[in-house]
């Protein structure tokens, strides 16, 4: 079990967490709590994988897998965005309870995906041919870096990283970022400054749907050859990452790395010689169980430590009434 393998594996888990946490960031910073990230991921993953499946089945993009991936990501993002419209409508227009609305979206997405899966593919499993790994030897001179950055790498990793940088820039230096944050912190102040709070909140939720949908596909692509209708709680883990990252893009990166690490551990633990020998000594001991629980337990511990002084956007979760002064 080499270090470069561990790093490459970790990236596979970190990236979807990162982008979905950023999705949650856009929504919450603008004032809407988005519990429906899981559902948006699921729908995005389904749509994206289905698209790829169909394209591959028709023999298209055979020589340009990365282009296929990009289109797949756009499809996934678009579907996530469509689903987020439901949340935006519920939370912003109808001023409903955002937690319940998000849960409704999750259940809806799961039911819809199973339904469509059976209807369009005939099975709950949507397969695709996994040809997206870079497999390049661009930096063959430095095998360690080459392995991580160019061999076992995926385009999605770079895309997510670019989105992270873009997000940092948006919130630090742009008009849009400043105004969006104002809508989530003190919407009345924003309104009296002439900002259309409703519009910005809609945009915040739509962006979050877009990124979460994309995140769903990003979750599936590097880790398997099919989509089975679930993203294993990643949408919720991403919320934990968001809170741990205290709603700041750079801290979210560290948080994602933290959790990605535990997730990686849960799949490669048997490869670590020390643990492998332990497993041999105690064959009946549920090692796998412990490692699978670890990301969730770690999340709980981290949340317990950070939640006391948690500084969420002040008006997040509170429906905005334009008539309130």
């Amino acid at each position, binding site marked *: 079990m080499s270090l470069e393998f561990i790093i490459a594996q970790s990236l596979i888990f970190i990236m979807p967490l990162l982008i979905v946490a950023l999705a949650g960031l856009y929504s919450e910073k603008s004032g809407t709590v988005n519990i429906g990230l899981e559902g948006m991921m699921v729908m995005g993953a389904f749509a994206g994988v289905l698209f790829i499946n169909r394209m591959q089945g028709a023999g298209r993009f055979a020589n340009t897998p990365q282009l296929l991936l990009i289109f797949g990501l756009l499809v996934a993002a678009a579907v996530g965005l469509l689903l987020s419209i439901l949340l935006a409508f519920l939370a912003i227009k109808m*001023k409903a309870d955002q937690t*319940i609305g998000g849960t409704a979206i999750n259940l809806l997405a799961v039911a819809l995906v199973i339904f469509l899966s059976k209807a369009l593919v005939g099975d709950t499993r949507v397969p695709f041919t996994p040809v997206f790994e870079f497999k390049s030897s661009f930096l063959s001179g430095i095998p360690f870096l080459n392995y991580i950055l160019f061999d076992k790498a995926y385009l999605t990793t770079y895309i997510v990283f670019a989105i992270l940088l873009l997000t940092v820039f948006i919130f630090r230096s742009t008009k849009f970022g400043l105004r969006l944050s104002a809508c989530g912190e003190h919407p009345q102040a924003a309104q009296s400054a002439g900002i259309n709070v409703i519009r910005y909140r809609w945009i915040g939720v739509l962006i979050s749907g877009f990124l979460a949908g994309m995140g769903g596909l990003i979750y599936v692509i590097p880790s398997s050859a099919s989509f089975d209708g679930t993203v294993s*709680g990643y949408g919720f883990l991403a*919320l*934990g990452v968001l809170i741990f990252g205290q709603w700041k893009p750079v801290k979210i990166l560290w948080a994602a790395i933290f959790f990605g690490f535990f997730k990686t551990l849960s799949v490669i633990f048997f490869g670590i010689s020390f643990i492998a020998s332990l497993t041999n000594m105690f064959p009946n001991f549920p090692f796998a169980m412990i490692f699978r629980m670890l990301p*969730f337990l770690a999340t709980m511990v981290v949340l317990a430590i950070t939640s006391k002084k948690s500084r969420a956007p002040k008006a997040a979760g509170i429906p905005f009434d334009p008539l309130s002064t």
Partner: protein
Amino acid sequence: MTSNNKSYSFREKLKAFSQTDRFKMIASSLIAIFLGILIGFIVILINNPSVAFSGFGRLLMGPLNNPNGAWIGIGQLMYRSTPLIFTGLAVAVAFKTGVFNIGASGQYMIGLFVASIIGVLGDGLGFMQWPVALLGGALAGAFWGAIPGLFKAFYNVNIVISGIMFNYIAVYFINGILGTVLRRQMVDSNNNRTIKVDQAARTPYAFFDKIFPNSGADFGFILAVIAVIVVFIIMNKTVFGRELRSVGLNKDAAKYAGVNEKKAIITSMAISGSLAGMGGALFILAPTVFNLGNAYALENVVLTAGFDGIPIALLGHSNPIGVLFSTLFITYIKISNVGLQSIGIASETVDLIVAIILYFSAFSLIISQYLANFLKNRRKRKKELQIDGTEVGV
């Protein structure tokens, strides 16, 4: 003259009733249901236009279409409702305290898990095996529910996220233990499911097998109804229940009135968890064997029974009686699944309908919230424009 007065007062009463909150709640739930079914029908129409109408008919007939007769179908309805009434109550009790117990699924599974273990390994308990298994399930659920409550009370961790985390922890824990430590004793390797519990651990039929033979109905349904009544009494007639509800209405005022907020949240979550746990226990302890029976399949999937409690609680406006009716309704249409499948309509259609109903029932909350907001804004504007003592007409 007298007859005129009578009908006038009836109409008056009806009009007065239509202004009450209760009416608005029932109406909004019915609207959500109507919309859900409508959309479901449209989906069927699009997908399988040829069988659309008979499909819709089967949807409406549900369990009454049971091949053994409508009466047996009702028995089946009772059987399938039982665990869901419990999870619905679980979510409802938590809602009343202002807490969204999305962890009901995990609590359900833990209850199921413990009851199953006692049911298989507890043969030394003799005739006590069933009550102990049931109790074990309830206590295990209470424990599992109290944990997110503790995290919220002492560390201010968002209860929705903890609930979800512990759902997954429950799944991995249960599968881990059953898959290794207790594998030999508890799991049937042929189908990777738990072994059926001992006879002595199964819920008694009471008289149900006479009235609804082979439908699955058993004493568990009676327990569910008892639970509804008990929860109703506790929440509405006792000081304890009032304190929980006050925390849900205004936790600051409750604190000011002397209610210990931390204790309230933890107790409420424990009660909620115990209800969900009992639901899980009753599921696995059911005496009837249908196909693979009520066994637990070792898959890394969070069972949906707990999540189903959410739309049930919302449709029932977190009122125990409302929960009972909305469970019966949702189970009713879920049973239609089989009927639909046999004419070629995907079984997930009903799941879809339930999910859509949930989406709209989040609105039904709105209608009552719209009202609350309206009152609040009225109050706020009145505050800004303070008019002296006279109350503005209702």
